[in-house]
């Protein structure tokens, strides 16, 4: 990533709008305790299902908790889950892709069979199965999502490695005495990372949706934690009487995912013009 990259990224409209949305979410998460007007867990039984007002900008939920504060704290959970889930899947996928592409042979075949097995299941079903086995907790949701989304990274990186390992600069590294792991991490990895960064940015959006889905189904973040997905699910029971309970967290999910997708597309356009023409 050179200086030219950042300059071009700032001139890319999609990246700029996406980056702006993400910046809002990130700042909200970081400064959640300062921004939230109320304690997100404090119940007021006399103030249940209140519509948006000056005191409660997004209204209150079924226990009279301030929805605005809960949505602000939801940003923390969503980002946390998204970043760690993507981190886990990226680390796993990039590592497996690197060694399977570089060493080939039985290792490569084994990894690719594993990828095919994972891809043969509907993703959300696999996530539900993982969480059902591990038990619903924020840590397990991140782990489960990480265990599912690594396949894309593995395939992309493997393809990149297959091309890069025949490049003359890689051969040159080997003739100057570099061992396998030096070649892989110093010479090949930096040259196959561009699509991975794009995938990771887009993957953050996907992971946040998946967390919301799991929480919505009751398998993700458990109450009373203020996840966007679980709040959305609670609102479903009161959709006719108090639609604001679902609408606000739903909008947050949508805008955050939109932000990551726009940013991801922008990075792709700038980092790898060849990719954008294909899609």
């Amino acid at each position, binding site marked *: 990533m050179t200086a030219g990259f950042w300059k071009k990224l700032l001139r890319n409209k999609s990246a700029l709008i996406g980056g702006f949305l993400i910046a809002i979410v990130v700042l909200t998460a970081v400064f959640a305790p300062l921004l939230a007007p109320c304690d997100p867990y404090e119940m007021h039984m006399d103030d249940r299902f209140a519509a948006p007002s000056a005191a409660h900008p997004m209204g209150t939920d079924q226990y009279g908790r301030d929805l605005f504060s809960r949505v602000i704290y939801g940003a923390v959970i969503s980002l946390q889950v998204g970043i760690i889930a993507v981190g886990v899947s990226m680390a796993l996928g990039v590592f497996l892709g690197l060694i399977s592409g570089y060493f080939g042979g039985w290792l490569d075949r084994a990894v690719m069979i594993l990828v095919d097995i994972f891809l043969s299941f509907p993703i959300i079903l696999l996530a539900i199965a993982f969480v059902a086995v591990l038990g619903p907790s924020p840590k397990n949701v991140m782990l489960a999502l990480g265990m599912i989304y690594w396949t894309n990274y593995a395939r992309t990186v493997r393809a990149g490695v297959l091309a890069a390992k025949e490049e*003359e*600069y890689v051969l040159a590294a080997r*003739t*100057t*005495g*570099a061992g396998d792991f*030096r070649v892989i991490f*110093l010479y090949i990895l*930096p*040259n196959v990372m561009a699509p991975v960064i794009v995938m990771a940015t887009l993957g953050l959006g996907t992971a946040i949706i998946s967390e919301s889905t799991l929480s919505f189904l009751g398998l993700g973040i458990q109450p009373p934690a203020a996840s966007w997905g679980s709040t959305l699910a609670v609102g479903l029971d009161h959709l006719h009487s108090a639609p604001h309970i679902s609408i606000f967290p739903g909008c947050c999910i949508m805008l955050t995912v939109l932000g990551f997708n726009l940013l991801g597309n922008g990075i792709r356009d700038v980092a790898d013009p060849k990719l954008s023409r294909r899609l």
Partner: protein
Amino acid sequence: MLLEVNELVKHFPLPGRNRFVRAVNGVSFAAAPGQTFGLVGESGCGKSTLARLIVRLYRETAGTIRFGGRDITALGRRGLKEFRRQAQMVFQDPYASLNPRMTVRSTLIDPLRVYRVGTAREREKRVAELLGLVGLDERYGPRYPHEFSGGQRQRIGIARALALNPRLIVLDEPVSALDVSVQAQILNLLVDLRERLGLTYLFISHDLGVVEYMCDHIGVMYLGCIVEKGTREDIFQKRRHPYTQALLSAVPAPGGAVGEQIILGGDPPSPADPPAGCYFSPRCPQAEDICRREKPPLKTLSATHTAACHLI
């Protein structure tokens, strides 16, 4: 002899049973210290495969390579690392042979780190020294390869090959991707470095003019075999093999007084399916029956000069 290659064979397997690309087919030659041994031939004749076999990027199918009297085909991990310190390679394409994500400094310093040469400060000094050796400004260190021209990049590639003070450098078409004006500069640099550092070169090229300028001994390759081998005079003045004659007749002479040019019909046969007998027989203007039946033995024409042809 610093480098002795004996009956070296490399076959790459193809899909299907018993199908191979016979890239290198029993090649033998030797290079003396301080000299340049040249390998010439058309593209696809196995020159680059041979180069990669010698620097151990490929494993041979059969044959031996001796370096400083030691067989390097059977080296273990540690022996291989020690050998690589002494034998380096310069690649053909200066645009592909430098890591685009590494600065010039990192590219040159990495081999020193691998071999734990010197302290951090000594390594920095060595980088500056290497850049000086190949005629580049030492301030170029923090720059990336894309900021350089082809000729400058090839100088960086040469500096990398020099980093570990090797005895042998395998040069695989080091100037064929460069402009003619730049070619001359790089060739002069290579000659100069050979004299100053006492290097031995294995110089691979398809350009006869370049080979004549650079090499003391020359092997002419055709379809994975050396068909004629000798000193520069043997090959350029006393050539005997019909392939060498055809190859050299294609070199334009200064002043336009071109001798009788021998035009070869067709293309070289596929190395996956070589012809019976002499591999050159289907295109040889002088071929006789025996050429199509039997593989010609290598005939000794003088102390330095050999050729593989039934008709000489």
